């Protein structure tokens, strides 16, 4: 057994390695090294946790057994998961962190001696508060992530579920948690502890069901943040530096990502949480417009012709590309264009896809060099000087109405200035509005050619026509 001081030093070391792991992600070149730092930090933490036990019992074998079982499942998932399913994978992983936090808190509650927190029924006050908070946040993370997972996976409808008095119910439940924790500290009764956890599960569900599909980038980031705070809460309970540092890192990371996502949609965090966005599409209004305005539609041949005669093309991918798995076909198309000396770049809106950076990963999977992929603010001025914008699977993020109509629900949202291109090719299955329920003016512009088809099929047809 190593001394408590020595193990604290080691935990600090693994905390620092985790910081370096995140630091590595500042550029793709250093990112892999960063990941190794993270793995090293984890190995140190796990070994130290073994060494900090006085005497080993038969349990070691079981611990290793469960470690191997869990590890194999994790490794299997990591190698099998398609890149398009990353959002639901991350949501699923968040739920596991949340549930693990709950279980650790329960274990600490049932056997406080193991962590020097007192004895059952007589746990130190501070520890009790910390473990209840850790368990509550963990439980919210768990059930919230499960709902997010079901929505992303399509098992549950992505449309918001709202009912009257929802927010009041959440508020009451939230207050109830604090009241229960207060009495838990006074009475140290098991049933109160379990009630806190149960109510927290319920809150997690209620928090996520009113949030709609396209707000998912915010939800995932938010749950990411919660999983961090849960870990930090447990870290305080167990007086473990590695956990406290990591929890704070992950918590602030998720919070920053939520902030970036909200800003990219020009929505306040509160309005995302309150949910219900896109629930009531004014569909009659849209139909009217459709009848009035003519739309130019074309086929793969027209699109190929336009692009062949262009000197620069900007590709705007969106969630539709992920759904259709069109990223490989897209890359093929771009290769053909490049052979004709056409300059091709990619423009990515921060909320394209269902999680932060989703499009970047898909393009990376299709072997698109990352220096051809640009973020909104870096490329937005280039649209005016480009010949063709190829919008594949994106919609709301290109809608010029966000700049012109203060009444529009997406007004003020930063959008890609696609309409400034000489011509716009819009791959879409129908004229239906995007998630925000707003008709896209871009469809009716003179320089827009609509390509009505599945994104993958259309791209493949264009590839054929480029020969």
């Amino acid at each position, binding site marked *: 057994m190593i001394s408590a001081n020595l193990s604290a030093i080691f*935990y600090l070391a693994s905390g620092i390695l985790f910081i370096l792991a995140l630091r590595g992600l500042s550029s793709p070149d250093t990112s892999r090294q960063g990941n190794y730092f993270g793995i090293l930090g984890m190995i140190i933490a796990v070994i130290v946790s073994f060494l900090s036990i006085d005497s080993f019992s038969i349990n070691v074998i079981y611990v290793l057994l469960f470690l191997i079982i869990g590890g194999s*499942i994790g490794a299997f998932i990591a190698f099998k998961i398609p890149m398009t399913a990353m959002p639901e994978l991350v949501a699923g992983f968040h739920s596991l962190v949340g549930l*693990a936090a709950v279980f650790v808190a*329960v274990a600490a509650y049932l056997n406080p001696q193991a962590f020097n927190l007192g004895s059952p029924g007589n746990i130190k006050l501070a520890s009790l508060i910390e473990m209840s908070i850790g368990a509550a946040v963990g439980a919210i993370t768990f059930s919230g992530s499960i709902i997010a997972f079901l929505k992303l996976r399509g098992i549950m409808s992505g449309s918001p579920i709202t009912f009257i008095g929802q927010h009041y119910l959440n508020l009451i439940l939230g207050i109830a948690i604090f009241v229960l924790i207060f009495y838990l500290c006074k009475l140290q009764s098991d049933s109160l502890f379990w009630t806190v956890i149960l109510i927290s599960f319920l809150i997690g569900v209620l928090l996520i069901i009113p949030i709609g599909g396209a707000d998912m980038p915010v939800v995932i980031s938010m749950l990411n943040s919660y999983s961090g705070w849960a870990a930090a809460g447990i870290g305080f309970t167990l007086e473990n530096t590695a956990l406290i540092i990591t929890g704070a890192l992950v918590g602030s990371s998720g919070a920053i990502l939520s902030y970036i996502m909200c800003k990219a949609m020009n929505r306040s965090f509160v309005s995302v949480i309150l949910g219900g966005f896109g629930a009531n599409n004014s569909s009659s209004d849209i139909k009217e417009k459709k009848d009035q305005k003519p739309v130019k539609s074309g086929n793969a041949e027209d699109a190929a012709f336009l692009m062949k005669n262009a000197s620069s093309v900007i590709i705007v991918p969106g969630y539709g590309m992920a759904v259709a798995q069109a990223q490989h076909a897209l890359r093929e198309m771009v290769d053909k264009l490049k052979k004709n000396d056409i300059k091709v770049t990619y423009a990515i809106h921060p909320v394209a896809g269902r*999680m932060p950076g989703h499009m970047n990963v898909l393009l990376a999977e299709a072997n698109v060099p990352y220096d051809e992929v640009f973020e909104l603010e870096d490329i937005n001025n280039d649209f005016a000087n480009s010949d063709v914008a190829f919008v594949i699977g994106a919609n709301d993020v290109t809608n010029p109405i966000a700049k012109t109509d203060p009444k529009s629900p997406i007004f003020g949202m930063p959008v890609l200035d696609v309409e400034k291109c000489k011509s716009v090719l819009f791959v879409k299955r129908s004229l239906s509005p995007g998630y925000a329920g707003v008709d896209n003016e871009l469809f009716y512009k003179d320089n827009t050619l609509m390509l009505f088809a599945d994104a993958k099929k259309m791209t493949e047809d264009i590839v054929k026509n480029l020969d």
Partner: protein
Amino acid sequence: MEIDPFIFRLSIFILSIFIGYYVVWSVTPSLHTPLMSVTNAISSVIIVGAIIAALAGSSDNVFEASSIYGFLAITLAAVNIFGGFLVTQRMLQMYKKKKNKKK
């Protein structure tokens, strides 16, 4: 008067939030998905608590309640650790391949 150790932990916590804040802002947006998967993996360092809980049981009674919760937490956290780091590695590998091709 002595300072409560809790205050030290709170200091570490607050300072780490600041470190997290600055480090995460420097992450390039194209790596936001790997950022999420790696933070997922590292937050599973909660496994140390699970291991301690699981090992605390006596040899006569391996499956007492607190150890069982420990075992469950170990399994869940292990899925996350291996899954999180490996999927991150897989993603980051893709960012590398392209670069080599270009050279």
